[in-house]
């Protein structure tokens, strides 16, 4: 029984892994479906006599629906799950058990961060693959190289989000406080990213990379944000370990 297995059991036995995989899979399956039949659905639920005309859906529309839902509700689930593991000082008596048996908080933090980031990536990959398959069936094929690169960029963003939770959890103790502040910071970054050219450098731009790439955006455009996300993730985890080690229980 190691701290790695502890984090794995936390995900499995508390059904948090099911929640992450389930939510992304659900949006992966329903995204292309709603894109394919949106026109028909609106026609049925709209007022009688009103006809809604939409352009015929293209394969990229299936991914758009998935990314839209995954980047909001999916990200929220990932952050809540990550906060529940990374805010390990939230309950003192529970924290004492592990904190007094390690030399450094890093020993607790690295497995918790890695396992939760991996779970987030797994969820996003499963959802993306489901969306890709269903898009191919309902709307037509997606460019494989661009799709895979988009999935990689989206996964990197989730790693950054989990690292952000780790850093915030090192400063505040509560699970909900850590999750709430992390969400707020990511939202602020997203808003800032929409102003001027800064967005190209911010990790939040990776959220829409999958959709943009299947719509023929230049993959190189996302390299700065990817580099920043990778560097920032490492820095945030380092910060979390440094601050967490100094925190008193």
């Amino acid at each position, binding site marked *: 029984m190691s701290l790695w297995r502890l984090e794995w059991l936390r995900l499995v036995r508390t059904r948090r892994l099911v929640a992450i995989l389930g939510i992304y899979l659900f949006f992966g399956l329903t995204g292309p479906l709603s894109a394919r039949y949106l026109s028909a659905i609106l026609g049925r639920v709209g007022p009688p006599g009103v006809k809604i005309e939409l352009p015929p859906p293209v394969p990229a529309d299936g991914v758009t629906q998935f990314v839209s839902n995954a980047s909001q509700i999916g990200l929220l689930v990932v952050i809540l799950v990550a906060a529940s593991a990374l805010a390990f000082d939230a309950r003192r008596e529970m924290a004492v058990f592990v904190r007094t048996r390690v*030399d450094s908080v890093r020993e607790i933090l690295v497995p918790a961060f890695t396992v939760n980031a991996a779970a987030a990536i797994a969820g996003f990959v499963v959802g993306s693959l489901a969306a890709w398959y269903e898009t191919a069936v309902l709307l037509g094929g997606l460019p494989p190289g661009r799709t895979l690169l988009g999935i990689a960029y989206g996964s990197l963003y989730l790693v950054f989000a989990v690292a952000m939770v780790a850093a915030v959890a090192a400063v505040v103790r509560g699970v909900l406080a850590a999750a709430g502040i992390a969400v707020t910071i990511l939202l602020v970054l997203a808003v800032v990213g929409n102003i001027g050219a800064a967005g190209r450098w911010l990790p939040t731009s990776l959220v829409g990379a999958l959709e943009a790439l299947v719509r023929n955006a230049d993959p190189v455009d996302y390299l700065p944000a990817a580099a920043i996300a990778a560097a920032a993730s490492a820095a945030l985890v380092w910060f979390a370990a440094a601050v967490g080690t100094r925190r008193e229980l």
Partner: protein
Amino acid sequence: MIVETSGLTKLYGSHAALDGVDLAVAQGSVFGLVGPNGAGKTTLLGILSGLRRPTAGDVHIAVSRRRMALLPDTPQFDPWLTGTEVVALARTLVAPQVPRQRIDEVLNDAGLSEAAGRRVGGYSRGMLQRLGLAATVIGQPDLLLLDEPASALDPAGRREVLDLIAHLRGQATVILSSHILGDVQEVCDAVGVLRAGRLIFSGPLEDLLVGRAVPAYRVHLRAPVEPVADALRAQDWVTSVDATGVDSLRVGVRALAEAELRLPAVLAAAGARVISLAPLAPDLEDVYLELTSG
């Protein structure tokens, strides 16, 4: 000394939770930290365990951090882990060289064999306390810090935990905080008394008790007791005789050793029908109240 502190001070804002504590704990001893609520016991244990930092002063602990363990007053574990997994995790973290079968042994010693495979979310408070002790001793620590280890337990649970602590004597140094003075007197050989962050006594339990209690015997005998009391009062080594019931006498003596030699003979000569005879143990509670009420 396995633990030594000098001038240890911990401030929370302007409040001194610890105020210049000079503590010395001998290797192999079972050391009791007593004091009223807010005296600084938990803060002191937190600093010794490395979970809190002192504002001033020095701490010297003669063992590495991995060779010491802290058990909080209400230990908690992830509720979806089994008892076996909790102890196994503790073993992996602090003593991976300990054979796996030792996990079952310490769970058995803690009386948790039957519950070992159950998730700890369903454990009672006493079971959690014993599981905490099992997870503590699996690492065979040299220094155990126990914060109120029996305070929340029912009499049976308290008895079990005290027996577990007594069992550790000779295997490890134990520092335990408690406000149950009977427990401290039973299992500890040295004691520190904290009041308002200050260590007002530290040393062997005997040093604390001796000189603070008059040596005396309690004699239970068949009535009437007065003729026996008169015979005892005639002895020059008897300092006082008080009837403490229809069949009980409290006999103050110059020295217990002297009484051990002479008391049975005087009782026999007086024709006393003795039911029981025992020295009156000095009571830590009386001494504690005297020390902490000032």
